[in-house]
């Protein structure tokens, strides 16, 4: 009897205690496809990893959800021809209690520039870091750099002493045979501290009570629980059943269903990523065509392809309205995109046919389109639609849709005649597009496009500090590109977030969750 009563009492207290504890805390439970690969902030430049690490670590400068630059570990900065001076925030502490000072900035840049770092391309604008005093550093650049602040948002700052004590002064080497301490342990200055982490299962982060920004930002989360769910249908089910509050990447075809459910909402925004096709316009002969010459060398053929593909139909039918058809390979939000340049070429199969006839291909020709099937929204379906549209003007396109791990090497190795690619721009500046996709030696320029003026402008805008002049140069390059069409732009992607309406979660075009702005109502 007594036992039963004690048990009942115990059960009742437990039952009462649980909902109370839940109410006392604002917990955001969320999911997306993949888990962070490592907690080392310089080892993997990859979506989920960056997203997790930027909760724990911070950079000198960051972007808010409207993608406007804002001070983070630096309070202010000033540009000079030989480098930028950053005034650091005082009184900031790492999670282990040690002070954040200029030494940590020097160390972190050295680490980000190390051979085994995945951020060395981003950090390479900084040649060295000079300590002026404990809270002032000068980032030395190789000549004037007008956009240095834009290039620094991904470089996270680590604690020098902690890294030295744990023997992680460089990011993990690919060829190493042991994991380093920083893969599973972290010590940043950020708003959240890792409480527990089971990779691919659950990572629990609690708010850092000593964070410098606690009173400066509207966010009121006490805890974040992140559970990656790789299957898209399961992800949606977890949201519908109330097990998670937020899904970063719901499948587009499920959005209507989510919106129809009680207590859930969907937000969409234009993404900083454009989808387009590239032509190999440099090779003498195409690999997948029976022609003796390369038809893509002829600008008329490239224009005909542009006119033959109905981007509005792709938006309507394939994307269910969730895309922005375009004539540019970089989206609004990136410096250089203007409404005039983004004005579509139009859909005109008659004219396309006429242009092909003029170029000597009245009977069309055959070519292979290489396309990924697991990288972009509806990637394979877009390619299928394009194949059908090109068939109507007499071009016989054979589609090869394959996983990204096999698709991207074709572009890297320059073995594709005609391919799909998407490009996001972390710096929000056209230089990032020119340098990789349009300059002669760009690492992703598989078109072989080589225009002397574009190459020259790509160089010039790295050092041009007169911003009006610089913008004019960028505009000039885009005019040339619009004229010569080395790429066939399809659309800018749209991102969709699905969430419980208990939370106010501002959507950001770079697809990054920013918990410091997340409010539990």
């Amino acid at each position, binding site marked *: 009897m007594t036992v039963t009563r004690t048990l009942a009492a115990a059960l009742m207290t437990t039952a009462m205690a649980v909902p109370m504890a839940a109410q006392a805390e604002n917990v955001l439970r969320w999911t997306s496809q993949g888990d962070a*690969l*490592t907690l080392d902030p310089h*080892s*993997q*430049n*990859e979506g989920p990893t960056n997203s997790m690490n930027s909760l724990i670590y911070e950079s000198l400068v960051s972007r808010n959800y409207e993608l406007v630059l804002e001070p983070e570990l630096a309070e202010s900065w000033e540009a000079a021809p030989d480098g930028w001076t950053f005034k650091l925030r005082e009184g900031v502490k790492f999670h282990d209690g040690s002070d954040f000072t200029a030494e940590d900035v020097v160390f972190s840049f050295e680490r980000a520039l190390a051979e085994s770092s*995945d*951020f060395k*391309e*981003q950090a390479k604008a900084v040649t060295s870091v000079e300590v002026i005093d404990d809270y002032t550093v000068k980032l030395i650049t190789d000549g004037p750099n007008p956009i240095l602040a834009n290039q620094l948002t991904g470089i996270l700052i680590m604690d020098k002493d902690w890294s030295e004590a744990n023997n992680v002064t460089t990011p*993990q080497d*690919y*060829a*190493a*045979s*042991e*994991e*380093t301490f920083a*893969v599973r342990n972290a010590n940043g200055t950020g708003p959240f501290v890792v409480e527990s982490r*089971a*990779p*691919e*299962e*659950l990572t629990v982060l609690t708010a850092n009570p000593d964070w410098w920004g606690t009173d400066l930002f509207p966010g009121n989360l006490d805890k974040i629980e992140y*559970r*990656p*769910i*790789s*299957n898209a*249908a*399961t992800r949606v*089910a*977890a949201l*519908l*059943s*109330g*097990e998670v509050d937020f899904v970063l990447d719901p499948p587009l075809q499920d959005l209507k269903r989510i919106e129809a459910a009680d207590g859930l909402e969907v937000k969409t925004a234009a993404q900083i990523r454009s989808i387009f096709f590239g032509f190999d316009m440099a090779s003498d002969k195409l690999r997948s065509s029976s022609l003796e010459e390369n038809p893509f060398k002829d600008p008329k053929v490239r224009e005909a392809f542009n006119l033959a593909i109905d981007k509005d139909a792709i938006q309507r039918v394939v994307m269910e309205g969730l895309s922005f058809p375009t004539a540019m390979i970089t989206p609004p939000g990136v410096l250089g995109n203007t409404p005039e340049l983004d004005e579509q070429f139009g859909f005109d199969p008659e004219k396309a046919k006429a242009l092909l006839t003029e170029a000597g291909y009245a009977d069309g020709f055959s070519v292979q389109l290489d396309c990924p099937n*697991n990288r972009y929204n509806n990637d394979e379906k877009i390619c299928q639609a394009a194949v059908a549209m090109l068939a109507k003007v007499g071009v016989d396109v054979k589609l090869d849709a394959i*996983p*990204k*791990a*096999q698709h*991207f*090497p074709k572009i*890297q190795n320059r073995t594709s005649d005609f391919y799909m690619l998407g490009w*996001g721009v972390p710096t929000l500046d056209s230089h990032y597009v020119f340098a*990789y996709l349009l300059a002669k030696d760009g*690492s*992703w320029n598989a078109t072989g496009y080589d225009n002397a003026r574009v190459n020259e402008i790509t160089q010039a805008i790295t050092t041009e500090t007169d911003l009006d002049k610089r913008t004019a140069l960028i505009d000039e390059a885009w005019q040339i590109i619009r004229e010569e069409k080395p790429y066939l732009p399809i659309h800018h992607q749209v991102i969709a977030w699905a969430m419980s309406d208990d939370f106010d979660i501002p959507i950001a075009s770079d697809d990054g969750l920013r918990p410091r702005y997340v409010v539990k109502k």
Partner: protein
Amino acid sequence: MLLFILKRLAQSLLVMAVVSAVSFSLFNFVGDPVNNMVGQDATREQRAEIREKLGLNDPILTQYVRFMGNAVRGDFGLSYRIRRPVDQLIMERLPATLELVFVSAVIALVVGIGLGVYTGIRRNTFLSRAILSISLIGVSLPTFIIGISLIYLFAVTLRWLPSSGRGGTVDLGWWTTSLLTLDGWRSIILPAITLSLFQLTLILRLVRAEMLEVMRTDYIKFARARGLADRSIHFVHALRNTLVPVITIIGLNIGGLIAFSVITETVFQWPGTGLMFIQAVDFVDVPIMAAYLCFVALLFVLINLIVDILYFVVDPRIRLGG
């Protein structure tokens, strides 16, 4: 006896060698891991350098020999994706998979044998026919669809069970289990049913067919003539004699359960070796793929070896004939 086992062991080693060689040569077609390992702004030179460092430019035979040389010493390398030792990763994930397989096997056995006996004895009732028709679903529907349907029914509509993940685990130091807490059972039940359904229907149909066969034999008629109770005839005389083929099939299918768990684990985000394998394929994480395939091959080989030895013990004809 000893000679028999030695012979079998030698054959097993051969099978392992062939499996690992075949799987290794397949990795050539999965794609290039380097693209997944570096950010989009890595230069072509940096990519080439990583390929060189990882030895991906060597001929496939050289890579294979290097892999086997290290594997024999117990070194399976670091995962390309997570940068942690592969053997450690597999050992961490193994308890989840083995528990899932164990619970599924129990469900398949208990329910499969129970329903099989029932439909075998009362073969003309409405219920028997209904069970048989429904069991067709288990054989014909893909695991993926079954899993998603169960999630929508029990997690989204009824909200009785969690949709995914492995909740309520208890760490015993060398093993993490979800079988000690209510939460753990709540999260294992849907994936276990999903995984068991195919085996369950297989066992059901096998037991039923055997029961029909046995019930016609003379010794059952004699047992009936002796006036024994139905229960004792069905479960002592009949069922016992149907179990020999059932045990054989189950033994062979445990391996199948582990293989099928790849899909179930993906649907339910069950953090076992199957989910890890799928993620490794996606990323072209060669060290994990290679180690996992070797591990599964080893498992199959071991199970077959045990079955062979059991035959040897149970069936005197093999002993005499051998």
